[in-house]
């Protein structure tokens, strides 16, 4: 029984693996449905484009596996966005594990996109992932698409011109828009909370 990071082909696999290893986790990186079904908990990272990421999950036969998974699942960044029903990025149907659609962030000199940097979280309700965090704590975000902070599965939002989903949760499935693996001690606390789930 171990922690499995889905080899979703994105560029943050190494940094996520190192972050989990720093916390003492036994980490396997895999795209194999059998390995993922047997995991104690699963992380779905992702950097890149929604279309290519869904294609990779479909080719590996992982879409039904993730839909039926009963273990704790954490989507990170694009991995969180894939939990929703649809992404405007590549006009892609995604996993449909959360209610809502992912849209493109508007870009302007006043509010540049991607939303890049350290932002605070506003907790809408308590969540085990956020145990021990302070309102002033910041996480590192980098994303050009977003889910609205007003969707029903959102447990914490961030402000960037509008309310965006920062942490989402439905039962054993959760997602974070930011990169806990690159969010210093705050991110490590969130990953530790997930490893303890």
């Amino acid at each position: 029984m171990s922690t499995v990071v889905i080899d979703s082909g994105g560029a943050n696999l190494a940094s996520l693996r190192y972050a989990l290893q720093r916390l003492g986790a036994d980490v396997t990186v895999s795209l194999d449905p059998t390995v993922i079904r047997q995991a104690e908990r699963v992380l779905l990272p992702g950097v890149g484009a929604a279309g290519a990421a869904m294609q990779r999950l479909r080719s590996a036969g992982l879409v039904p596996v993730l839909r039926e998974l009963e273990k704790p699942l954490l989507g990170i960044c694009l991995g969180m966005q894939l939990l929703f029903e649809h992404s405007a990025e590549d006009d892609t149907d995604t996993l449909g594990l959360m209610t809502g659609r992912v849209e493109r962030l508007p870009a302007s000199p006043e509010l540049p996109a991607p939303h890049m940097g350290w932002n605070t979280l506003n907790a809408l309700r308590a969540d085990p992932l956020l145990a021990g965090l302070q309102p002033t704590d910041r996480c590192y975000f980098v994303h050009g698409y977003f889910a609205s902070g007003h969707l029903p599965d959102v447990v914490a939002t961030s402000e960037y011109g509008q309310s965006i989903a920062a942490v989402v949760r439905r039962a054993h499935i959760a997602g974070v828009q930011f990169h806990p693996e690159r969010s210093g001690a705050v991110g490590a606390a969130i990953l530790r909370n997930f490893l303890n789930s």
Partner: protein
Amino acid sequence: MLAKRIIPCLDVRDGQVVKGVRFRDHRIVGDILELAIRYRDAGADELVFYDITASPEGRSVDRSWVERIARVLDIPFCVAGGIRSVVDAEAILNAGAEKVSINSPALENPALIDALARRFGSQCVVVGIDSETTAEGYRVHRYTGDPTRAGDAGRDTLSWLREAQDRGAGEIVLNCMASDGVRRGYDLTQLRTVRAECRVPLVASGGAGSTAHFIEVFHEARVDAALAASVFHSGELAIPDLKNALRLAQIEVRL
């Protein structure tokens, strides 16, 4: 609210961090890993490792240190220098870097920006622009790490900025050459001009010498991040003190 970022830049040559004045006469300031950890502990929001010799001499960076850094560092870092292809970038990103930054190779082959953005997403692709103030306006310079090849790239800074972001750059680092290394402050006029055209995050570079310079670049040029090297490496300005001063000046920072 999103915090303004403070980014120490570690210019790398042969596995050592170096810094010169106006891109010349580089001297060693310390070991990469040691400095990376020191800056992380001091509260740096992000780090940039820039191999100043790689791009002009057609070499690639020695990438073993990228993985060593990724194993211990828990804040984002960007690698620049000698990245000429998707394969070069992939090696660095797979080793654990958050972003790659391209400068002279993007001027030689602008389609590299499109290729990197398609493959890795714009958020991984930083375009560095070395910009000189001339009688004809702001001009892009290339090969600035190599005094024998450095010179005008034949492009206007604003048109190159527009092209780079249209091709998929996810962030722009504007290095104002006239102010670099001399610590008299960022080039606020140039940064304001570029900000007005820049719809991706903009990082100011070149000229930081005091707390006041950081305050004015955030207030007056509305940049997303400020990059500096010598003022941090010399110990003249400590990041915790800088961030406290920024907070007192009503600038949102991560403490």
